[in-house]
């Protein structure tokens, strides 16, 4: 079982969270400007790395907020958790890789 550190509530059991998939995928500002292949890439294609993965988690049975997690997909070790840009707290490293403010959950 993963022990996940919610940026707001601290370390909690995996069963309190729900998984939101790869982080850093933004809905294109103008979908009509995209080719079918670009739209497919946005909708369906994922980087699926063997190694460090940036992903979204929601503290569904806690504060119900989304946040980012950097996790190794082979050892499952969590390297860090971080607030998303736009959410209170901002990105610890100031980088992109989260949801836009107010864009809500993806799945």
């Amino acid at each position, binding site marked *: 079982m993963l022990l996940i550190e919610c940026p707001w509530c601290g370390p909690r059991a995996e069963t309190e969270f729900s998984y939101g998939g790869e982080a850093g995928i933004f809905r294109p500002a103008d979908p009509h400007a995209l080719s*079918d292949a670009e739209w497919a890439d946005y909708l369906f294609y994922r980087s*699926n790395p063997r190694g460090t993965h940036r992903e979204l988690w929601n503290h569904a049975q806690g504060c119900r907020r989304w946040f980012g997690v950097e996790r190794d997909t082979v050892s499952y070790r969590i390297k860090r958790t971080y607030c998303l840009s736009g959410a209170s707290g901002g990105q610890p490293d100031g980088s992109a890789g989260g949801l836009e403010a107010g864009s809500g959950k993806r799945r």
Partner: protein
Amino acid sequence: MKHYSALGLLRNALGRNRRWTPAWRSAGPKKSYDAVIVGGGGHGLATAYYLARDHGLRNVAVLEKGWIGGGNTGRNTCIVRSNYLWTEASLLYEKSLKLWEGLSRDLNFNVMFSQRGVYNLGHSLQDLRDIERRVNANRLNGIDAEVVGPAKIKKAIPCINTSPGARYPILGASLQRRGGVARHDAVAWGFARAADALGVDIIEQCEVTGIEVRAGRALGVATTRGAISSERIGVAVAGNAGVLAKMAGLRLPVESHPLQAFVSEPVRPVLNTVVMSGAVHGYISQSDKGELVVGAGIDAYNGYGQRGSFPVIEQAMQAVIELFPAFSRVRMLRLWGGIVDICPDACPIVSKTPVEGLYFNCGWGTGGFKATPGAGWVFAHTLACDRPHELNAPFSLERFSSGALIDEHGAAAVAH
């Protein structure tokens, strides 16, 4: 290849089993091949076998980083059926089921295919409507399927709990009598032995570490045992598909997840069929050794670790005990995980790629064991002819940009 027979078995037994010879050669890699298959699971081995048998391509190598059948082929719960909802999917799985029906004879290897029937349970009115719809769709496609009620289920499976007071009462089920289970290791070994006999090199301990692409064409692979050139490369590495795609500069609409299964201590014969339930998310059968074989659902997160989380095991156990209260005191002996390659529409990709000469067979996710012979058969055709067979044409990469997805998510009950 030494032909296996009852007489040979007897002769070897009398000779104290000292005269058995290896079932396939331990081949070393040559410098080049007409076709290279990456991944020595059931799918890769079946592909090589049908390439050699049906398409006359015998200068073929199967490259496996570990030992053959050590991936999902040796880790699954062995369920074989073809009762998928959509025509494209059901025809592909039905092709496979037909091949299963003659496979032991084709390969001269007992894959222990046992058509003991597969029940997919329904626990609500909506489940039952879905079951009726799927059974009708199957029958229109010439696939055997029937709807059975609780009384018939109870008669066939006395230890199942059909009482109306159950938390998830059993209201009915679909039954495919031609479905069942097969021995997974035997499938890998049987295909390996038969492919080897046709001249295919099966090269274990040989990990592919790079794919050479020049001007949009695949030219060969780099491996831990040296470079191998080939202008036809078929990739069948299940959960590692994304890793291989990256080597060729490609992305895939596939994500890798852990999927777990476990077996109990052996008990007396108690369950002579396969029971699956999408609603409580468990599936169970009994092996010939007497072990109860139980499969769980995937872990939600991406993972390459060949192990999953404990809560998923707990859920699967809850499901099984809900259906079979008598099993609550059976002890579980072993537990393991595999890495499954999940597509957004829960259907596979058996396809050409933007790189010429490079083909992918992946995305079978939680349900590709049943497809082993069929997937190998259509993938061999795709590699040999440089175009898909009509059975796998709908399962191309293009479907993700054309929008012609084949949504088997809820439709095929539990995804196995």
